[in-house]
């Protein structure tokens, strides 16, 4: 049984410090720097004031907790500072509250050094004077030390302090130079960002970036490792696991807390389990999101509500059109919402498109008005989680449990267009292309595994063509090789990539390398007999085309010898084989064709050689062969094949085709049976 550690999504400061270190992702450098800045500040003359800004649940408290803990492990500075960590829910309504909160925090942590006695003297006087008295007492007791003031939700503290309290606080900081601040806020606010504000430029502000997909996967993986959930760790490294994390990524919007909550769903495979879990989460979060929307000014709340209903990204113009709010106001309010972390924007041309920063807000708002209908975001999510086939199967296999509610989801998933499946696939495609461009084929390989093959193959093929077209032949070769080497790909797609490789290597004149690679590629065909035979035959054809005849003959013999199922390869490559022989010098034809017929005879393939001979007639037109060459080619075949009855149809067709070309009319074709004639005639159109 796996050991579960206490991982808190809401109060990371209550977690074991080592556990926090073990699961920490993304912000290592910022944390290292923060600790250094704080250490320098508490032990030196300069005083640092750090402020981390990010939306709720983005890991601010965790970062602060880790920084404070790491600082506490630096032995030689411990006497240089005292920590006053104000509670996240401490209500500050004025300067006096801030002074009291600091005093309380210091006394709780250092009861021998700081005392409540000063309050006896401060009572009964003007609150601002009392604050001065309290702070003066703290400074006296502090001696040469510095206060490390940890303040969460600085925006709320500043709101409580109001302009007057902020100025008093700044004056205290300036006059005493005794405080180092480590603060967090959900958003920028005028008290620090306006040049008119007392604290403008005072804080060293760091905006915390949301988790990227890879960071998120690592976070969940780290948690799983700590909980010894080895199956989950393995699953997270698998293409399916990675793909599912991408689906979570669309729901969580880069929010640490939500990943921790959502990671529980990763291995849920049953439709009812997943729907129940997601609806449960939406239900739980609804009051929280409702409160967030309610806290907004009415026009901003209306815009958020509209974006919840809309479900995607929209331009200012379209939002203004639908909401009957003037474009200028929409633009201004969306700007405010962006600062507050409610929306994200992306520019396309001159227009900016806005969407909700937290998709779960949409889910929760939809929950309110669900009335038994499937929730759109969950439908979109299920579309990523299960393929259509899997969903249909699931519904059948879970039929005993399926109720009308689940059936509604199934119907909705099957009926919907791609939803965010398209976004995920598009993101993946971009990532793959970028990896290839940056020569990170190892990374690209992992990403390719995640995408559905049809999407991925077309992406890679298009990229390969594109690179070849731009003259970046080596890049193109890498892309086509990626297709060949992709375990999950259909073999016919791999063969298509090999054909493209032939073109690409051809441009470089590096046929030997091509053939070596094809030999190497036999390992990517798996155990399938047809695949193996296809490759062997393909190699033989390549050798016939580009290497001396004796080596080619060995390869073709080898293909017949080792190929366990030659029928399909022969159908595909038979004509190409003859085409390759035709391209060799005509003095080699007699010996080669004789050998070829014997080889086919040995493996009982003469009848198929006959078919290939019919199929190869089109080469005359393609190669624009001279009449002399055509005559010679025909005569060698007639001489060498005369005694093989199974070759007679092919020989007749070749003779008739040759006569038609030489005579300049199609009368000779009438000697052929109708079905053969119908095959040959189109191949001769345009031949002279």
């Amino acid at each position: 049984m796996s050991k579960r550690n206490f991982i808190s999504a809401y109060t990371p400061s209550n977690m074991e410090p080592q556990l926090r270190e073990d699961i920490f992702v993304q912000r290592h450098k910022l944390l290292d720097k923060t600790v250094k800045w704080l250490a320098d500040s508490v032990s030196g003359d300069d005083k640092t004031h750090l402020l981390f800004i990010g939306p709720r649940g983005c890991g601010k408290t965790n970062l602060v907790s880790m920084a404070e803990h790491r600082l506490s492990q630096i032995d030689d500075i411990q006497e240089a500072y005292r920590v006053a960590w104000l509670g996240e829910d401490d209500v500050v309504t004025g300067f006096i509250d801030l002074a009291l909160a600091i005093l309380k925090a210091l006394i709780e942590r250092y009861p021998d050094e700081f005392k409540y006695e000063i309050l006896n003297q401060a009572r009964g006087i003007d609150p601002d004077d009392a604050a001065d008295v309290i702070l003066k007492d703290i400074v006296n007791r502090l001696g040469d030390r510095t206060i490390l003031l940890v303040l969460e939700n600085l925006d709320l503290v500043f709101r409580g302090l109001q302009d007057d309290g902020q100025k008093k606080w700044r004056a205290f900081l300036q006059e005493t130079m005794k405080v180092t601040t480590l603060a967090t806020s959900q958003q920028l606010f005028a008290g620090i960002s306006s040049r008119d504000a007392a604290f403008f430029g005072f804080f060293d502000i760091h905006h915390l970036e949301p988790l990227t997909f890879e960071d998120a996967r690592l976070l969940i993986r780290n948690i799983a490792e700590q909980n010894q959930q080895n199956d989950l760790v393995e699953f997270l490294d698998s293409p399916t696991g990675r793909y599912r994390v991408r689906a979570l990524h669309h729901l969580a919007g880069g929010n640490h807390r939500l990943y921790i909550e959502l990671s529980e769903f990763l291995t849920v495979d049953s439709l009812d389990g997943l729907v129940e879990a997601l609806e449960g989460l939406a239900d739980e979060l609804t009051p929280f999101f409702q409160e967030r929307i309610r806290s907004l000014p009415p026009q901003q709340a209306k815009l958020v509500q509209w974006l919840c209903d809309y479900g995607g990204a929209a331009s200012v113009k379209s939002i203004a059109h639908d909401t009957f709010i003037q474009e200028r106001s929409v633009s201004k309010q969306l700007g405010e919402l962006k600062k507050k972390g409610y929306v994200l924007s992306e520019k396309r041309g001159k227009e900016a498109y806005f969407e909700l920063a937290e998709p779960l807000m949409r889910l929760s708002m939809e929950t309110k008005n669900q009335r038994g209908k499937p929730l759109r975001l969950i439908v979109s999510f299920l579309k990523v989680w299960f393929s259509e086939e899997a969903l249909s199967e699931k519904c059948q296999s879970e039929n005993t449990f399926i109720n009308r509610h689940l059936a509604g989801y199934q119907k909705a998933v099957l009926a919907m267009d791609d939803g965010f499946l398209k976004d995920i696939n598009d993101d993946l495609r971009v990532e793959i292309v970028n990896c290839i461009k940056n020569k990170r084929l190892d990374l690209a390989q992992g990403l390719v595994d995640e995408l559905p093959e049809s999407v991925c193959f077309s992406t890679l093929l298009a990229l390969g063509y594109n690179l070849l077209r731009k003259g970046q032949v080596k890049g193109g070769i890498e892309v086509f090789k990626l297709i060949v080497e992709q375990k999950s790909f259909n073999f016919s797609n791999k063969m298509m990539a090999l054909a493209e490789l032939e073109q690409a290597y051809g441009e470089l004149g590096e046929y030997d390398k091509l053939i070596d690679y094809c030999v190497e590629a036999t390992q990517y065909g798996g155990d399938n007999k047809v695949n193996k035979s296809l490759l062997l035959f393909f190699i033989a054809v390549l050798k016939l085309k580009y290497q001396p005849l004796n080596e080619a003959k060995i390869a073709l013999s080898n293909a017949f010898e080792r190929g366990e199922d030659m029928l399909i390869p022969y159908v595909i490559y038979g004509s190409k084989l003859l085409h390759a022989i035709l391209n060799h010098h005509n003095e080699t034809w007699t010996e080669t064709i004789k050998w070829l017929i014997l080889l086919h005879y040995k493996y009982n393939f003469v009848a198929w050689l006959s078919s290939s001979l019919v199929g190869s007639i089109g080469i005359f037109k393609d190669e624009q062969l001279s009449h002399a060459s055509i005559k010679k080619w025909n005569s060698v075949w007639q001489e060498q094949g005369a005694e093989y009855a199974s070759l007679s149809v092919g020989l007749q067709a070749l003779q008739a085709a040759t006569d038609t070309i030489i005579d300049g009319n199609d009368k000779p074709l009438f000697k052929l049976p109708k079905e053969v004639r119908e095959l040959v005639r189109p191949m001769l159109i345009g031949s002279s």
Partner: protein
Amino acid sequence: MAKQIGPNNVIGRDKIIKHLWRTLESESVVFTAERRIGKTTVLKKMQAEPVDGKVVIYADLEKINTAKQFVENILNSLSAHLTKSQAAHNWFETLLPKLGGTAISGVITLPKIEGRNWQSLLEKTINGVCKNQSEQQFVFLWDEIPYMLQNIHQTDLKAGKTQSNALQILDTLRALRNEHPNLRMIYTGSIGLHHVLSQLRDDKLASQPTNDMAPVEIGPLAAVHAKTLAKKLLSEDDIECDDEAAVIAALIRLTDAVPFYMHRVVTALSLIEGEIDVAQVESQVKKHLVISNDPWQMEHFRQRLPIYYPGDIQDSNNQPLPNASVAKHLLNHLALTDDSQTINQCFNAIKAQVNITQRDMAVELLGLLAKDHYIEKDDDGKYQFCFALLKRWWILAEGLNDE
């Protein structure tokens, strides 16, 4: 990184401090600069390292809302200094009851003061200390005094008072300066004192409460000190550069050698993995100038134009033309010129944009823009942007050309 700099760690301000001390020998000072240039850092260093025989008292006055609080602040500041000598301490102990003040845990408060009575308390305090300690020179470093004046003015307005206590404080302090040769003051603050005075006077009163004071302006660091600071910052943050000299040069050039911006850019650089090159410095500066949350609040320079330059003039068609709009045209012109411009060049440029004939108005606006640190006048009387950084932002924000 941006932080409060300890007096021992201040770089490149010795010359201006020396100049301030020398000026203070004969007169008090109005110390000006745009925000975040380092005024407070200079004052704190002066406080920490006073020249012989001077009692230096630093106070951040933005917290003061009433004249009474201002007197209390002076008493509290003096108390900390006067307790160092027994005689002075004893004298101070006798002063406090005369003023009706009480001390709680070392914090002095005064009883409620009616009307203008604060003035006599202020005079008694300053007169008392200057006379009683006549062998010493007292230097008050008053930071954020414009904020205090605004606060007091607001408090008075709320209380329905018609007379300006704020102006009265300045006039009283001027009179005290004249009376006591051992009393000096430095006024400074984030917003220009001239704006606050104009607001307090409502352009009616002729009070000139600072015309006995020498204006001293602090600018960016000199090249040599900027280089020292840049080196120090890079080293403190363990930043490795592919070409340190080039990175330092770029850092100084792109931040106009303003320590605040240098700190900010170095902090951002310190979070980048690997070696730093000039392109990364450029990219960080550009990022700070164009990212949507405007971390350096450059927008403020544009938004405050109508506040700083209110009112209209009549154009040649007798149509109202906002002063702020003319100021913007002037700035747009200067943003697009590589060389500094004469008054005539500026005037001709705005005439091409608006129907304006009053040259005097352009001259006055150029002077005000210089006072507010948008632009500066060189030795030939020509104008240009004070800071290349602001100029660059202005071009981007106004879309004056493509960058």
